[in-house]
């Protein structure tokens, strides 16, 4: 084999295409990051390095608006991701640890419904629903809508993790006269921790990311970061938007890195 010149894994041109792929993915983001440090008022002309737009983000006239929006985004993501994670954990336990029961297949379809339905359709349906029942749109409607579409995203890593955990541990606990609830709480949940954590993070980021559904169901005077940024960008990309984008970008990257590292420790402890 060693004498064979042909490397079966090698295809000419694949490496450059991969670098092109990375370049395409990163170039726009890097350019925005670079220009967020631009000292010029004009967004396209370079006027030297400066932190003025970051100062503007935190202390400028629009700062309170973006701070409130950031607060809303974070609290909504926290609540929605927490609820979605709890619901998804419970559902995963049913799907994977509760044998066969009536409504299992239907339940599976339902859990995945939020990813199957296009976002814009979910947005329209939710808007119609809330308006038909006369539920005033506001903070709560966003939380509800986010919880719903975060469930499948939380479910995926949780279910994957649960499937990889052998049930002998819980079986052993039951043999030692632990109640089912105790087995679940003291044995399964701790083993599940990394999966639950990734599920939570995924749901959290998906909620932070959402624009379309939020835009449809948000109530009077409530903005999340994406809707506030969108409103601002429609009027033209201002340098402070680039600074906000860079900050958000850094937050996202920190989160993923965290999730990646936790995921790795989870793999090792297994």
């Amino acid at each position, binding site marked *: 084999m060693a004498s064979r010149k042909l490397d079966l894994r090698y295809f000419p041109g694949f490496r450059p295409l991969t670098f092109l792929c990375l370049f395409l993915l990163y170039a726009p983001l890097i350019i925005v990051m670079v220009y967020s440090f631009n000292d010029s008022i004009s967004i396209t002309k370079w006027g030297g390095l400066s932190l003025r737009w970051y100062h503007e983000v935190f202390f400028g006239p629009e700062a309170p608006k973006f701070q409130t929006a950031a607060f809303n985004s974070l609290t909504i993501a926290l609540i929605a991701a927490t609820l979605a994670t709890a619901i998804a954990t419970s559902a995963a336990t049913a799907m994977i640890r509760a044998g066969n029961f009536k409504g299992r297949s239907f339940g599976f379809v339902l859990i995945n419904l939020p990813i199957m339905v296009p976002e814009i359709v979910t947005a329209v349906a939710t808007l119609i629903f809330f308006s038909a029942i006369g539920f005033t749109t506001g903070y709560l409607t966003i939380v509800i809508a986010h919880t719903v579409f975060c469930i499948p995203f939380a479910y995926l890593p949780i279910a994957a993790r649960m499937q990889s955990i052998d049930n002998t541990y819980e079986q052993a606990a039951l043999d030692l006269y632990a109640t089912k609830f105790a087995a679940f709480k003291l044995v399964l949940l701790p083993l599940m921790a990394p999966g639950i954590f990734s599920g939570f993070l995924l749901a959290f980021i998906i909620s932070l990311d959402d624009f379309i559904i939020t835009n449809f169901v948000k109530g*009077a005077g*409530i903005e999340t970061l994406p809707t506030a940024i969108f409103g601002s960008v429609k009027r033209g990309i201002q340098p402070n938007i680039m600074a906000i984008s860079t900050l958000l970008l850094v937050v996202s990257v920190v989160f993923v890195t965290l999730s990646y590292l936790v995921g790795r420790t989870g793999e090792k402890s297994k």
Partner: protein
Amino acid sequence: MNKLLLAGTTAVALTLSAGVAQAAGNLSIYHWFEYIPQELLDKFSKEHDVKVTMDTFDSNEAMLAALKAGKLGSYDVSVPGDYMVEIMAQEGMLDTFERSEMSNFGNIDPQWIDVGFDMGRKSSIPYQIGTTGFMVNRKAYKGDISSLSVLFDPPAELKGKINVLDSQGEVMALAAMYMGIPQCSTDRDQLKKLNAQLQKSKESWASFGSDIAKDVLVSGDATVGMIYNGFGAKARSENADLEYAYPKEGYVFWMDNVVLLKNAPNRDNAIKFMNFLLEPENAAAVTNYAQYISGVTGADKYFIDDVKNAPELNPPAGQKGAFIEACSQEVQKVYDTIWTNLKK
């Protein structure tokens, strides 16, 4: 998991308390984008100990649609244009007030009290008065700009370089002026011609957008852009090559008004806010920011020079503007079809 739950509960508690406490009252405004300075809202907030929240819209029709979609009852005041005040009144969306409720009511310029869309000002007060026309980048296009043909039958070099406001009322009114037919015409031939004209014009247009109107002109993405005069003045301050045109066929003249909405959750604060806006100094603050004419007497002495001298705010003598008319349901249906055809 416990920690997560704890964090979640804390967040809920924080949010709830953030919403409830802080200020003695609330005021919820549904306003155009970029139309009131934040400092003025802060000033009101401080003077009356009221927490102000504001949502924005980018066309009269979009605002109407949102209010109809169940947002009525969550806002206290909104800022519709002239014809939209009439429509909202017909739709039963407006509350009324007594003159005595506002100590500054007498500051309204007398010529703006008995207006067709709200005789005697029972639900509205004047906000800003302006025009809608178009603006041209004179560096990129040096031809004649004194006719609406620049928008509707542009020379070949402007093809694909035109942004049009995403606002049905204004586009249709300007098109009617260009063709010399009355607004809301019931004449079928005229309506057909209007449709055909817009279909033809559309081929030269690059984009529909109201909130992007200034940016595309400033950045040079568009050479010609339909725009409101004050927004145009702001655009010119960022790009000196821009010139606001006063077309000979006419232009849209409009008046935005602050209206008291039905089922306003904070009616008292809404009245206070309207009264606050009738204070000449505050009215001038709006004008200095938005760069349109104010409907409040005495505001002009607070105007900054930029506003006093802006060509966008001082039409040459002999030019004519016309209000947009509210069409009957029958004509509106045809207008909607024409508009849909246009947006296809």
